[in-house]
C-alpha cells in the first residue's frame, strides 16, 4: 500500500465491532504482537471480559485495518511526463483499426504444426498491411502502440514500417519503457521532422537528439539539399562513434551527390575499416568520381581484347600485387580462404570500375556483345561474376539484362550460374525495372519450374504483375498433377499468398476442389493441395478486404469490392 495514511486519522472507521475507549495501539504494534503470538506476550489491546487475548487482538486489528483503509490519503503526484508531440496524421478507419488489432494479436500464433490448414497466416500479412497503411499516411491507434512496439521488438523486419506508422508518440512512449529502447536507436522514425525547417532547432536536435531522430533529420535535410545535410554531418563527424559513423555514411546512399566526393575521399582514411570500405563503395557508384576513374584505370590494365584473334577474345592478366593505393581505395588485400589472391584482387577492381568504361575499352561494343565475347584461360566465370556485382552496385540495367541473358534459354543453369560462380541472379534482377523483372521471372518459371525461383519471386513487385502470377499458379498446378505434396512448395505457396494479385482469387477458386489423384501420386496429396489452394484463395480475399478497409472513409461504403 503506497498511499499514505494520515497518522492520526480522526475519521470514524465505521467498523462494526467496538473496542474499549482507550486510544488504539499503532498498527505496527499490533503486527509485532501478532507475529510474536499472544502466548508469549500480552498484546497492547483491551481485552473484554470472557474474551481471549487473541480474539481481542483480532478485534483491534480489524478496527485498525478498516480505519486505515477508510482514511487513505492521496499520494503526492510524481513528475508528470512531458506531453507527447502532436501527430497530425489521420486515424485509421474503424475496420482497419480492428484488423490491425487482430494482426497484432496473432503474433507467432501459428508456429509449430507442419500442416497449415486452410486459414490465412495473419502474421505474414502484417508487413504489407503496415506498408499499405503508411502509404495512406495514417497514424497508428494509440491503444495499439504497446502491441505494435512489442511486435517490432520481436521482428526486426517490421521495425521501419511499424515505427513509421507509430510515429512520434511511439518515440515518446519508448523513452518510458526500457523494453522498447530499440526505438530510440533504430532508424525509420518520422520521415520528415518539422524541425528541418528551422536552423536553430536543426542544430539543437542534431546535437542533443536520439540517434533515430538524428538519422531522420539528416535524411530529411539530404532530401531537400544534399549539401546542407552533409554540412551538418561534418560538424560532428570527428566525434561520432565508429558504428554511428558507419550508419550515417550508409544513410547517404540514397541521396548521393557529386558534392559528397571530397568528404568521401577523406573518409577513405577513416580510423574504422568498415567506414573506409563503405566510403570506397559509395565513391565507386558516384559517376565521374576520382576513385571510379582510378579503379577503371586499374581494371582496364588487367582486362583487354586480343585483337589479333578472330573473333575477338578477352584476355585477363590478374594483378600481381595489392599496393597501398589499391588498399586505400577499398580493395581488401586478404582473400577469404579457398580463393587465390590474384583473382580476388581482380574481382574487386572490376566490381568497382564503372561499367560504361568497358564499352569504350572493347571498341564500342554493347554490353550484350561484350558478355558474348569468349574469355581466354578460364577467366570467364571470374570476370562475369565481377561484372554482375558491378551491375548490382551501379544499378546498371543494361548490363544486368546482358548478364542475365534469356531466361528460357536451354542449359540456363550452366550458362548463368556455372560451377564455382558466386553469382547472385536475384540481386541482378533487382536492377531491372519492375515489369521487366516480373516478365523475366515468369519466363524462367515457365521454362525451369519453381524449384530455383523462390528468391527471385521474393524480389518481384507486389502484387505480382501478369504474366508472372499466372505462371506461378500454372507451375503449382503442374506440381499438383505431378503428384507431389504441397509442402514441398510451401515457400512459394506462402509467397503466392502474400504476393499474388487479389483479383486472381476468383480464377483460382476452381483449383480448391479436391481432384482425383493422378497415377503414382503421393497418397492423400489431392486433399492437401485442395487445402493449400483454399488457403491461397482465402488469403487473397482477406488481402482484398484488408486493402479496402484501409481506403479513406470519404468514398461510398457500398462501392467496396471485397469479394
Amino acid at each position, binding site marked *: 500500500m*503506497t498511499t499514505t495514511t494520515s497518522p492520526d486519522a480522526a475519521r470514524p472507521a*465505521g467498523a462494526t465491532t467496538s473496542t474499549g475507549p482507550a486510544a488504539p495501539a499503532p498498527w505496527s504494534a499490533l503486527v509485532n504482537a*501478532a*507475529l510474536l503470538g499472544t502466548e508469549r506476550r500480552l498484546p497492547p489491546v483491551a481485552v473484554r471480559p470472557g474474551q481471549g487475548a487473541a480474539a481481542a487482538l483480532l478485534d483491534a486489528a*480489524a478496527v485498525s485495518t478498516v480505519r486505515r483503509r477508510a482514511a487513505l490519503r492521496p499520494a503526492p503526484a*510524481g513528475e508528470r511526463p512531458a506531453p507527447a508531440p502532436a501527430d497530425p496524421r489521420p486515424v485509421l478507419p474503424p475496420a482497419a483499426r480492428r484488423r490491425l488489432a487482430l494482426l497484432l494479436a496473432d503474433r507467432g500464433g501459428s508456429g509449430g504444426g507442419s500442416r497449415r490448414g486452410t486459414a490465412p497466416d495473419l502474421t505474414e500479412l502484417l508487413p504489407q498491411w503496415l506498408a499499405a497503411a503508411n502509404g495512406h499516411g495514417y497514424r497508428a491507434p494509440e491503444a495499439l*502502440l504497446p502491441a505494435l512496439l512489442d511486435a517490432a521488438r520481436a521482428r526486426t523486419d517490421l521495425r521501419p514500417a511499424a515505427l513509421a506508422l507509430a510515429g512520434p508518440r511511439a518515440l515518446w512512449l519508448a523513452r*518510458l519503457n526500457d523494453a522498447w529502447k530499440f526505438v530510440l536507436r533504430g532508424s525509420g522514425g518520422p520521415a520528415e521532422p518539422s524541425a528541418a525547417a528551422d536552423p536553430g532547432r536543426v542544430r539543437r536536435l542534431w546535437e542533443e537528439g536520439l540517434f533515430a531522430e538524428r538519422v531522420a533529420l539528416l535524411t530529411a535535410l539530404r532530401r531537400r539539399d544534399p549539401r546542407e545535410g552533409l554540412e551538418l554531418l561534418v560538424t560532428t563527424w570527428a566525434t561520432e562513434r565508429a558504428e554511428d559513423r558507419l550508419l550515417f555514411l550508409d544513410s547517404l546512399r540514397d541521396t548521393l551527390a557529386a558534392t559528397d566526393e571530397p568528404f568521401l575521399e577523406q573518409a577513405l582514411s577513416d580510423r574504422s575499416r568498415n567506414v573506409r570500405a563503405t566510403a570506397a563503395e559509395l565513391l565507386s557508384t558516384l559517376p565521374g568520381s576520382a576513385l571510379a576513374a582510378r579503379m577503371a584505370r586499374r581494371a582496364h590494365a588487367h582486362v583487354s581484347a586480343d585483337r589479333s584473334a578472330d573473333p575477338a577474345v578477352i584476355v585477363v592478366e590478374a594483378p600481381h600485387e595489392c599496393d597501398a593505393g589499391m588498399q586505400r581505395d577499398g580493395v581488401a588485400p586478404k582473400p577469404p580462404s579457398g580463393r587465390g589472391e590474384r583473382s580476388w584482387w581482380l574481382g574487386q577492381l572490376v566490381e568497382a570500375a564503372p561499367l560504361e568504361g568497358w564499352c569504350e575499352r572493347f571498341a564500342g561494343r554493347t554490353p550484350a556483345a561484350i558478355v558474348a565475347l569468349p574469355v581466354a584461360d578460364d577467366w570467364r566465370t571470374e570476370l562475369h561474376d565481377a561484372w554482375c556485382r558491378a551491375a548490382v552496385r551501379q544499378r546498371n540495367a543494361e548490363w544486368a539484362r546482358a548478364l542475365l541473358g534469356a531466361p528460357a534459354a536451354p542449359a540456363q543453369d550452366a550458362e548463368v550460374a556455372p560451377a564455382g560462380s558466386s553469382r547472385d541472379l536475384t540481386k541482378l534482377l533487382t536492377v531491372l525495372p519492375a515489369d521487366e523483372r516480373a516478365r523475366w521471372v515468369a519466363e524462367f518459371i515457365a521454362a525451369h519450374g519453381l524449384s530455383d525461383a523462390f528468391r527471385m519471386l521474393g524480389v518481384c513487385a507486389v502484387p505480382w504483375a501478369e504474366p508472372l502470377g499466372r505462371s506461378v499458379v500454372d507451375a503449382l498446378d503442374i506440381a499438383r498433377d505431378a503428384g507431389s505434396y504441397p509442402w514441398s512448395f510451401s515457400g512459394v505457396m506462402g509467397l503466392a499468398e502474400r504476393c499474388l494479385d487479389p483479383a486472381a482469387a476468383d480464377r483460382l477458386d476452381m483449383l480448391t476442389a479436391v481432384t482425383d489423384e493422378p497415377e503414382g501420386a503421393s497418397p492423400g496429396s489431392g486433399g492437401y493441395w485442395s487445402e493449400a489452394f*483454399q488457403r491461397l484463395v*482465402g488469403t487473397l480475399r482477406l488481402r482484398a478486404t484488408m486493402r479496402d478497409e484501409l481506403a479513406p472513409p470519404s468514398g461510398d461504403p457500398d462501392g467496396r469490392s471485397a469479394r
Partner: protein
Amino acid sequence: MVRRSVGDMNPLGERWTTDQVLALAPDEASRRAGGKLAAPGPWSGTGADDGAVWGLCRGSGKKPYQAVVDIKGPAFRCSCPSRKFPCKHALGLLLLWAGDAGAVAGGEPPPQWAGEWLAGRRERAGGPGGAAAGSGAASRAPADPAAAERRAERRMRRIGAGATELEQRLTDLLQSGLASADRAGGGGSWDETAARMVDAQAPGLATRVRELGSVVASGPDWPARLLEECALLHLLGRGFLGIEGLPAPLAATVRSRVGLTTEAAELLAGPDAATVRDRWLVLAQQDSDDGTLTTRRIHLRGERTGRMALHLSFGGAHRPLDLALPPGLVLDADLAFYPGARPLRAALGERYAPAVPGPVPPGCGIDAALAAYGDALRDDPWLESWPVVLADVTPIPGRDGEGWQLADADGESALPLDPRCLGRSGPWQLAAISGGAPVTVFGACGHRGFLPLTVWDPAPVSL
C-alpha cells in the same frame, strides 16, 4: 401496456459492430481463432434474418460445422466439439457478418437445422417471464415451504459451526504467532481449513481462507497483510455468529459474504422485488477463468441515478455465459440490486431498448475517489475496492515498471496503480492513449491502489 421484445424495436435487425462481436470472445485465443475464420473461404450456406445468423464452416472433419447465432440473446449453437463459448465458428460467423455487408446474404429463411433451434428459443422467450436475464433458472416455488425452512435452518447451523471452528483456528494462530504460519509452511493447512468451510456450506469463508495461504508467500510485509486478512475474516465470522443483532442491510452483507446467495429470479420477480430503471452505461466487461468456471464481471453506471452496479455471470463447460456487453453501450433496463449495506451486485431485468453507443461518463478526481472508497467501507468493511470513474487524470509511468500513478491534471493528488496490473500491457496502453494529457479512466479504487479497467480514447478501450 404492450410489452415489446428487443427485436421488435428494430425491425431491420441490428447489425453489430466488429467490436461488439470481439467482446463476446471468451479469451484472446478464441478472438484470434475467430478472426481467422472471418473470411468467406471456409464458409458456405451462410444467411441472416433480422434476429439470427447461420452458416456452415468447413473444419478438419468431413462434415462442416453448423453454426447459428440468435443475436437477440445473444445465444449460440455450433455442432463443433469445442468447450469454448461462443466457439471460434460462431465468432468467425459473426465477424464475417459484422465486417462486410455483402458477406452474409439476407432474406432467405434459415435452413431446417438452424430454424428448429431458433424457433425453440423464440418460443421459450415468448413464454411467461422469459425475458428475465435469460437465465435458465426460473423461479420455482419450493414444493414444501416448511421443509425449505428446515433446510435453511440446518444450513445456518452448519455455517455457524464452521464459523466457530474458523474462529478457533484464527485465535490459535494469533496465540502461537503469525511467524509460526510461515514455519508451518502455512499453505497446506489453510487449504485444509478451506475444505472444512466448504463442508460447512460456507463457500465465501472458504475462498477467503484459501487466499490466506497465498498471503504468506506474497513477499515482504506479509505479516501485516496476513494480520489484516485474518482480522477481516474474524470480523466476518463474528458478524455471522452475531447476525441476529445486526441491522438488516449489514446482515445481508454478512450473509452474502459468507456465501449465502440470493436467486436472481427472486430479486426480479419475488414478493420484495424492487428494480431500478435507468440508462445503464457499460463501463467494463472482464472475464476471469479459474480453470473450471469463467466469471464475467460487467460494471454499469446509471445515467440518471449515478449508481454503480456490477453484473456477474458464470460460465462453465456446460453452462455458457449468457450476457455480453462491450464497454460503451447504454442499456435502458431494470436492475435489481442484491441486498446489502452497500449494494453493488445487481441482476439484469427487463431491457426496454436495444443497447446503443453511449457517452464518455462523468468522473471525479483523486480525492473524491478515495473518499468514495472510504465511504463505502463504512457500510461494508470487507470491501477491497469501490468502482470509480476518474476524470481528467494523467498516468505517470513508474521507473522500472513500478510505482505507476494516476494524478489529477490540476493539483498534487495522485493514486498509485494497483501492483497487480503492472505486469500487463494495460498501464502502457493507458500511457499511450494519454500521451501525457489527462484522460477519463474507470477502475476499482481500493486499498491496494487503483486498478484501471477502461480508458476513453474517446471510445472505450479495455485495459
